[in-house]
């Protein structure tokens, strides 16, 4: 455990983290994991975070060493897409029993690794530590070392048991494991001056593929994406990239920063969400590559693509602009996504009536203020009850959030759109923004809202007062949309 706790400390100390920069020495040491309140906590554990971060590596067998809960309750439930192997969607677990708890589960783990190599021949096995096996003292690092020697293929310990902290810490510990055991262990067949890494992009709903065609057109090669649609080998030789883009700052900042230190790969923090951010990201990729010696015509080529794509985007926005103008959005999401989505929605004329900043850094918050003005309605931690009230009182027309809070909106009979990791639509790049706007319009203008807000017949007859109240409410909610043409003309 001593190595794990020093790792956790190291991750807390992250110098490149915006939040950390603002903290004093002592505060920094205390770490960024907020003390959870028993009986009032929500969210995944460190193991969950580690799995989210690494599972998108497609040709690896992800083996969870622990009781059935950790894998059995959660496998194959994330939306990362693969262009090749589907091995990453196979659930592997040691499913330890009482005897393992008493006698230790190391042999059981070793045999499991053997079975996986025998049956599935993966590029590597990632072994995830969990609470119970950590508590009984199973040394997964030693087992992985022995297994690597025995089977001649990488067996990587991912030491992020759930009880060390939250999902974000797990993301970072997963990053540490890649830095310690994977990155720099293999060499690419060829390199080009146009090789980049994309760090912290998971290819949810295939979003990486929304962006890739533009990079291809620029002549930029994604040497390695960590970890969306990645193969083990690609991650292993990612140290040969010329530059890197870090997509989700809070999740994998340690990888970007350490790769810059170790391999002199400069990185920038960017986002594929929203037109301005997308264009800036393409520009930054080009700029960093040219700085590192790529021919300068890349910049020109990039600008041309940006001009073309932006113009095409705005043409596609024409039918939506009138319909979405002034629509009030409640945006409940984490971190970097807040400001990049805020700017994206504002670009098409929507009004953000509130946004959560629970996971945002100081810098993120500053950006939101710039975008939304000084009186930006930022909520640190909105309770479900507050969200429900805001929607019920029609202070917002639509809520965009993760799947867990969707029913708050739906039970208030208000439109909702999924913008988190289980979502089915891809929202990255210029095409993705069109999809997002189209989906918002589809949700807002769906004819069900009028129907479900209508009082029941017995409410009309039995309780006149209640019936009138409900009707008024309905009119308020639909007021803004009555005069617009039908959905069919837009979609």
């Amino acid at each position: 455990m001593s190595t794990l706790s020093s790792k956790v400390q190291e991750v807390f100390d992250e110098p490149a983290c915006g939040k950390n920069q603002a903290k004093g020495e002592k505060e920094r040491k205390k770490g960024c994991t907020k003390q959870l309140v028993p009986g009032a906590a929500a969210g995944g554990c460190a193991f969950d975070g580690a799995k989210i971060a690494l599972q998108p590596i497609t040709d690896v067998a992800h083996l969870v060493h622990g009781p059935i809960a950790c894998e059995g309750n959660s496998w194959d439930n994330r939306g990362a897409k693969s262009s090749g192997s589907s091995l990453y969607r196979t659930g592997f677990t040691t499913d330890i029993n009482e005897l393992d708890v008493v006698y230790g589960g190391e042999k059981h783990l070793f045999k499991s690794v053997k079975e996986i190599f025998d049956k599935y021949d993966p590029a590597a096995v990632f072994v995830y530590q969990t609470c119970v096996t950590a508590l009984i003292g199973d040394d997964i690092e030693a087992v992985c070392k022995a297994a690597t020697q025995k089977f001649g293929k990488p067996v990587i310990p991912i030491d992020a048991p759930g009880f060390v902290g939250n999902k974000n810490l797990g993301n970072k510990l997963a990053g540490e494991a890649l830095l310690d055991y994977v990155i720099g262990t293999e060499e690419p067949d060829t390199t080009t001056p146009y090789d980049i890494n994309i760090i912290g992009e998971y290819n949810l709903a295939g979003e990486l593929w929304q962006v890739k065609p533009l990079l291809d057109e620029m002549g930029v090669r994604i040497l390695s994406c960590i970890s969306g649609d990645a193969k083990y080998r690609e991650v292993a030789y990612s140290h040969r990239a010329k530059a890197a883009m870090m997509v989700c700052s809070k999740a994998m900042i340690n990888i970007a920063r350490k790769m810059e230190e170790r391999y002199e790969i400069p990185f920038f923090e960017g986002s594929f969400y929203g037109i301005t951010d997308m264009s800036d990201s393409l520009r930054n990729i080009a700029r960093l590559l040219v700085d590192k010696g790529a021919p300068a015509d890349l910049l020109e080529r990039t600008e041309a693509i940006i001009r073309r794509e932006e113009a095409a985007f705005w043409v596609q926005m024409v039918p939506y602009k009138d319909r979405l103008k002034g629509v009030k959005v409640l945006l409940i999401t984490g971190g970097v996504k807040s400001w990049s989505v805020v700017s994206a929605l504002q670009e098409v004329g929507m009004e953000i009536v509130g946004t959560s900043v629970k996971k945002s850094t100081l810098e993120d918050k500053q950006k939101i203020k710039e975008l939304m003005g000084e009186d930006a309605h930022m909520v640190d931690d909105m309770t479900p009850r507050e969200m429900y009230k805001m929607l019920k009182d029609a202070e917002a027309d639509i809520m965009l959030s993760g799947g867990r809070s969707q029913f708050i909106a739906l039970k208030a009979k208000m439109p909702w759109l999924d913008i988190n990791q289980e979502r089915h639509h891809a929202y990255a790049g210029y095409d993705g923004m069109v999809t997002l706007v189209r989906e918002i319009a589809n949700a807002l203008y769906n004819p069900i809202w009028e129907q479900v807000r209508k009082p029941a017949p017995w409410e009309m007859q039995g309780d006149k007062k209640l019936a009138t109240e409900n009707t008024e409410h309905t009119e308020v909610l639909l007021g803004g949309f009555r005069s617009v043409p039908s959905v069919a003309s837009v979609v």
Partner: protein
Amino acid sequence: MAIVIHVKKSCAVNPLKMSAPIGAALAFTGLDNCMPTLHGSQGCTAFGLVLFVRHFKEAVPMQTTAMNEATTIMGGYDNVEQAILNIHKRAKPSIIAIASTGLTETKGDDVDGYLTLIRKKHPELDEVALVYVSTPDYVGAFQDGWAKAVAKIVKELAEPAPQIAGQINVLAGSHLTPGDLEEIRELVEAFGLKPIILPDLSGSMDGHIPDNFSPTTLGGTTLAEIRATGRSEFTLAIGEHMREAAQTLQNKCGVPFEVLESLTGLDTNDRLMTLLAAKSGRPAPNKYRRQRSQLMDAMLDAHFYFGGKKIAIGAEPDLLVAVGKLLVGIGAELTAVVTTTPSPVLAHLPAQEVLIGDLEDLEQRAQGCDLLVTHSHGRQMAERLKLPFLRMGIPMFDRLGAAHQVTVGYRGTRNLIFEIANMFMAAAHEPEPDDWRQPAAQGAECGSCAPAAAH
């Protein structure tokens, strides 16, 4: 009839099984104004929560004692106490129901003892019912956690008191959907009896729209009803895993019981009708006589398509028995059978062998079968093996309406038979000129469908 085999391998691949603590938590979700809580790390709750949200498409109240490394080693008393006080303050539930996890069981937290101390220290909690059940993750499966939770609920909360005439307990197994429970309620009420269903997911997880926001469960068995289970004339336990709870209730309050292993199929529904008629002193209503007749007709129409069909099925023991016996009863064969946990019902299953294993085991044996029956995690193997795929059980995250899949009663059985028969019909092979020339590779694959196609 079946030999039960524990698969001997080290690595479970594509788990069929889910953990006992979340089985207990879902049972608690069937109690009204309750806050199900797991005593473990926050991830234990988060995984369960996400699973149920995706299955039911509903908000699910569920809390955690948020244990970390240090509190685990020091013992979880403070966390349990704080969790209860916080939940009481913020959500005001009538029941706080706690299940342990692998983490806190490995440490050995004495939660029963904690609760006694907390009760003494906090008289403000006198009105709140506290239930605790021990469910280490590394023992048993989802169904076992559910069974233990229901047994503990009646043990703690049922009160022996004078009998209420016409009141019947229905102890509902984890394999029953909210839709099933609505159907059962209707059945019992049709005989003029008053059912108390425990736990009652049809009150909380049936997907209704409440008038206001609630941080706790939206309905379910009320605390008063749970207490009154001790005053019922009779207990009907549905699913073998409800036997322990029924027995506990009999021991404590003297309520006699009968276990029906399922309510899917003709025989078992006949038994239900007999029981309800005897308890109520009324004959079976015409509605059900008609439905019985319709079921028989459905069996007659459907049996052409079922005869000799090979079924691959992966389910928890009591769901397995309910669906498996129905299929065999119309002429199909249980060719590949996998379940999650030992149960006395497995030995009686009409199959050669039953494996306690995972979906990898099922996939290896499902080659050449005509139908796959399991929960949504079977989707990958169904695609690989190109099998018609009937989703049953929890989780069902890639289809809507999981809560309203009704397979109990004459009517529910009839509909299930039609659904499966239609899948066979859709998958039937159209005859081609070369079908009878040589038993070529392609023809052999679909050999068993030929009679259906000819029909």
